[in-house]
């Protein structure tokens, strides 16, 4: 019996995460990349001229964006070897479940990088990120869903082009802007101790982006697969 879309998606996510857990190549390079970025950004500014509390939110979100791209590139890249994608397509599951499964695995990947990067920013920049851990986790989750929804779709498209992984950032980064701006703004207000009402608007924007692009990308994904 063919599994439902959601349970098939969980199976695919588990498969991708098992591969990642056993090899750990992408995760380690993304985590190290994030840490390097945090350090380099700090020295790119004059710390006596720019307060690190002003710097930290932007750095945090720029880092997530770029390290997220590292994971997204692999998402469909690993299916190219031995044409593994053909086996996925031949399986009695819906196309949407392939997309959702890949997206879920990518979401775990991005969240894992965040779990390393957020304390690192707190440590290196001396800003109170973790004092409002629940709210920050909410911002990070909403933003990660948006990044992953679009990035997973573009990853599926990019592997079938001549430019391959070169194309992913060109396609994705304009779409990451309406995620990075609200996330960075909300984070900045959070660590500045501003009232929650100043954050709500940015959170709404993130939720709206997530709803629109998860729906649109799920619908669009079947068209990206060669039949």
């Amino acid at each position, binding site marked *: 019996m063919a599994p439902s879309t959601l349970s098939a998606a969980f199976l695919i996510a588990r498969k991708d995460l098992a591969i990642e857990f056993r090899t750990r190549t992408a995760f380690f390079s993304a985590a190290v990349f994030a840490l390097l970025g945090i350090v380099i950004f700090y020295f790119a500014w004059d710390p006596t001229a720019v307060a690190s509390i002003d710097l930290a939110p932007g750095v945090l979100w720029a880092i997530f964006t770029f390290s997220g791209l590292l994971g997204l590139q692999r998402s469909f890249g690993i299916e190219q070897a031995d044409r593994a994608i053909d086996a996925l397509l031949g399986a009695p599951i819906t196309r949407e479940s392939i997309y959702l499964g890949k997206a879920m695995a990518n979401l775990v990947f991005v969240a894992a990088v965040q779990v390393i990067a957020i304390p690192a920013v707190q440590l290196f920049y001396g800003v109170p990120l973790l004092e409002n851990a629940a709210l920050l986790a909410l911002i990070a989750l909403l933003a990660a869903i948006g990044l992953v929804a679009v990035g997973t779709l573009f990853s599926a498209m990019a592997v079938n*082009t001549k*430019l391959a992984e070169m194309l992913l950032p060109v396609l994705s980064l304009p779409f990451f*802007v309406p995620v990075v701006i609200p996330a960075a703004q909300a984070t900045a207000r959070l660590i500045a101790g501003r009232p929650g009402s100043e954050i709500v608007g940015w959170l709404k924007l993130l939720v709206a982006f997530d709803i629109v692009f998860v729906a649109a990308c799920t619908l*669009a994904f079947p*068209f*990206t697969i*060669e039949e």
Partner: protein
Amino acid sequence: MTSPSSAGPASGAAKSAGGIDWLFLVAVLAIAAALARVIYYTPFEAVQGPAQKIFYLHLPAALDAFMAFGVVAISGIAYLWLGDLRLDRAAESSAEVGVVFTTVVLVTGPLWARPVWGTWWTWDARLTLTLFLWFIYVGYLVLRGAIDDRALRARYSAILGILGSLLIPFIHLSVYLFRTLHPRPIVIKPSAPSLPPEMLTTLVISFVAFTLFYLALVRQRYRLATERDLLELEEGR
């Protein structure tokens, strides 16, 4: 979905036989006439002086660029639905012309901003939006260039064209929450337009001229796409 369009490229190619492109000629004359009116028959704006006249290029180009990207999105939806390659050629042509018009907006904007705002560039909401529009559709053209398979190129472009149009309101909202330097809408608003009638007439003439120019360019570009598809078909790609 992968099969080439049933209409095939041949049906459009017959029309592209030589002769004068009348639409193009009319469009160029219309642009010349609009420019003449802008320069000689439209009064100076009281505060900004001659610099304000760039407005008659800037706004029509921006409106037609938006229209062009709207055509890309609608053709994309229609292509995914019907699978007719003519729709993809229309999207391709419109995107390319739209990028040219957006470039015009991005060039005329700073030229106007320098004397009036005192700066070439500012991270104002509409400037940022226009810049990102340019990035999205340049990315669209890069994507097209990176795919050899005709049907795959059409499908991927359609997806990006549709997602791009969904993205525009989000970029607008997120950058709008920053302070904006741009004037509030002055032409299309609930009360009467606050442009003097001479200026409004010039603007409308200029808009019509630019739209004709847009149509002429898209038609030319569409013919080129048709002939390229025909050539690729003959080469057996």
